[in-house]
């Protein structure tokens, strides 16, 4: 019996589920609260990412690639980057996509593309670039909707365990930081209530192409991201989550690739 259309839409095989979700976030957020820096800048980021993917994919794989992933990268850059200038949006989007083709080991790219692009820009151009710190308005409802919808989608695409592990770890470490520094625990938890973290949790740390293969190790890696973030936060690094993922993600990927390459392959003798 054919699957109901809604189930097909919300299934792991639907590569357009995540792009649809993030587009909804963008439209709802901007039309309601003006979360984007500007339509033009976000548009530039998306188009630049798509074009870069098309060109590089054609050159290096011989065919035009599926653009869902590039779209997510471009829109993530468009939402997350805050700059009065236009060039950071263009540069970040292009660098994000290029990183997939340049920074590869054994056919796998090491960094989540938008995480790479944003982290590099934040580090090298702090006088021109910041990240989204805007809120979802004053109401609890939009935040609840994003969390619920995001959780359902992530569950359907079988990545919920990553998000859940990270969020649980973040909260635990928030209380630990509060105990260590004496800051109110509410201030340590506060970043989790913002759209930046919601995008980070649902789209960056769960990226299938840049997470290790086994479920258990996915949880371990994202826990380590939270650990490194904790250390960075204790050292007052504002963009701790981005840098934590930047550092831990590819390290885990390299180890995963190493283990994968050492695993003995079974040869079945012909009968």
């Amino acid at each position, binding site marked *: 019996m054919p699957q109901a259309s809604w189930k097909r839409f919300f299934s792991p095989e639907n590569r357009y589920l995540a792009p649809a979700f993030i587009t909804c976030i963008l439209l709802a957020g901007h039309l309601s*609260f*003006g979360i984007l*820096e500007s339509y033009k800048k976000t548009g530039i980021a998306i188009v630049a990412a798509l074009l870069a993917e098309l060109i*590089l994919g054609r*050159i*290096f*794989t*011989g065919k035009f690639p599926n653009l869902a992933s590039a779209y997510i990268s471009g829109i993530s850059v468009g939402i997350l980057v*805050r*700059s*009065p*200038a236009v*060039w*950071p949006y263009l*540069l970040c989007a*292009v*660098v994000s996509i*290029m*990183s997939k*083709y*340049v920074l590869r080991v054994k056919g796998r790219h090491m960094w989540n593309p938008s995480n790479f692009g944003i982290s*590099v*820009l*934040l580090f*090298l*151009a*702090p*006088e*021109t*670039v*910041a990240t989204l*710190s*805007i*809120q979802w*308005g*004053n109401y*609890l409802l939009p*935040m609840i909707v994003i969390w619920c919808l995001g959780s359902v989608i992530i569950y359907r695409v079988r990545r919920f365990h990553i998000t859940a592990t990270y969020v649980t770890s973040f909260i635990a470490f928030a209380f630990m930081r509060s105990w260590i*520094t*004496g*800051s*109110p625990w*509410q*201030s*340590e*938890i*506060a*970043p989790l*209530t*913002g759209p*930046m973290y919601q995008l980070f949790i649902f789209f960056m740390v769960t990226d299938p192409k840049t997470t290790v293969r086994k479920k258990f190790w996915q949880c371990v890696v994202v826990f380590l991201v939270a650990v490194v973030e904790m250390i960075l*936060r204790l050292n*007052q*690094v*504002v963009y701790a989550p981005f840098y934590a993922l930047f550092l831990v993600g590819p390290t885990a990927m390299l180890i995963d690739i190493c283990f994968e390459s050492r695993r003995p392959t079974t040869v079945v003798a012909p009968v």
Partner: protein
Amino acid sequence: MPRSPIPRIVLGVIFGALVLSPMVIRRFEARRGAAKSILDAQTALGRHGFYFEEVSKAAGANFVHQAPTLDARLNHIMPQVASMGASVSIVDFDRDGWPDIYVTNSGEGSKNALYRNMHDGTFKDVAEDMGVANVNQPGVGVSMCAVWGDYDNDGYEDLLLVKWGRPELYHNDAGHGFTRVTDQVGLPRWVNANTALWFDYDGDGLLDFFIGGYYSEDVDLWHLANTRMMPDSFEYAKNGGRKYLFHNLGGGKFEEVAEKVGINSHRWTLAASAADLRGTGRQDLFVANDYGISELYFNDGKRFREVGEQTGVGFAPKSGMNAAVGDIFNQGRYAVYVSNISEEGVLIQGNNLWVPKEGTSGDGIKYENLARDLGVEIGGWSFGAQFGDFNNDGTLDLYLTNGYVSLDRNKSYWYDFSKIAGGHSMIINDAKNWPAMEGRSLSGYQPKRLWLNDGAGKFVNVAQAVGITDTYDGRSVAVADLWNRGVLDVVVANERGPLLIYKNNVTPENQWIEFELEGTASNRSAIGAQVTLFWNGQHQIQEVSGGTGFAAQNQRRLHFGLGKFPQIEKAVIRWPSGKTQTIDKPAAVQLHKIKEPA
């Protein structure tokens, strides 16, 4: 797929170059943006046409602002909450033809100062003698802003003082003293406001006044009922103070009409400016709000209509702390400058320079933000700003002061601030959730900006090169020709810091002209009167203001720089009453005192 490694190598090289390009861009922009950073007076005079000397002590104005000490439950974040109150306004209170300076203080029991111009380069504090010094007693709140306007048209400008506390109105008794008339006017018992201005919104010849609330008026910051008095959002806060519009009924009577005429906002207002933005002859009201969007109210003479989103100025929320207008392109149209917060590595809001879009006007006017394109965007934690032609070259320049909390130079509170500011309203609204500052600075010790208009659509920062070298936590800026020399001097009020008087030295090659207006059918202060000056094939419009910038008021005189060899064609005055008066070929290098014709 290409088998040769060459494409991948090429890609790698391009990738590396792109990754490093931000550093190249940063060097290029740094070199382009700054003029020489150390004052060399003769060089500044030759290159920029002017330089400043700070003369407050020599002039006898030894004023240091004190901040309030609020409820003890705010001790952990006191420096950032008790961080406003330094304000300055220019007035000729005794009508002797020399601008005087009124400065507010904000410590409990501290005194405001009224510096009377002694005509010899010095000032004398006469606030105590005049009865406008002792206004910050415990129980009545502390001063935040003072603006002047002749509400009864007797020729002497009266004082409206707004506070975190009880606002006050003082009648100027012919320059010999002031009488408190607050009770007769019916001002509210308590308002936590940082901005006010005088304007004649209904054109009846009597000055009305606007007060913009910041904290909610039901909050007594010295005796908090609870700690949930902070904004409920960093971008969408609507739990601030209400706005007031007092309509002058004549005979010393006022009626509060804000809600009746369509001004219903509870945003956190920090600055306001009234100007005829549409050429209707009535002053519209631009309101800059902290923790949210700016608001623009079109004035139809009886009611106000909020059009911020429609015009483009009120969509993206920022931290508005200044509203100043200036005809920066000499096209007879006002741009509006709003200051916000930018901190490298954390938050880049950028200041806004709202310029009317080509082809739009009247009720259909739309604005675009050209701050970045014109080079006036990044000003640190920006506060008060004023337009003025500081080198008399014929184009309006922009002076900006900045800096929030200057404590430990080596420790920053920004990380903790960014953590809480991104939180939900349930968290951010309660002061007890805010991390303790513990002596850390928050955008402290910032260099100021003086952006020189090159006349071709670009501004260049020359502040340090022309002698603006202080790094105090600046708040309020007022400009005035303090010594009647035909140049604009600058007075800056600093939070927990000294009053600064920057005396301007301008090359005499650049000429000037000034207008001092007096209304007859219009309000006597001539607030709202416009002068459009035509010279050398260009024209510039200016308007007498009842308060503009951040908690500031400039001199009432309108000062135009003319550049070299000016050929003045005419000056067209549009009075608030609607009358238009043309003065043919007014002489340059002169102050023209003009009374509205009967």
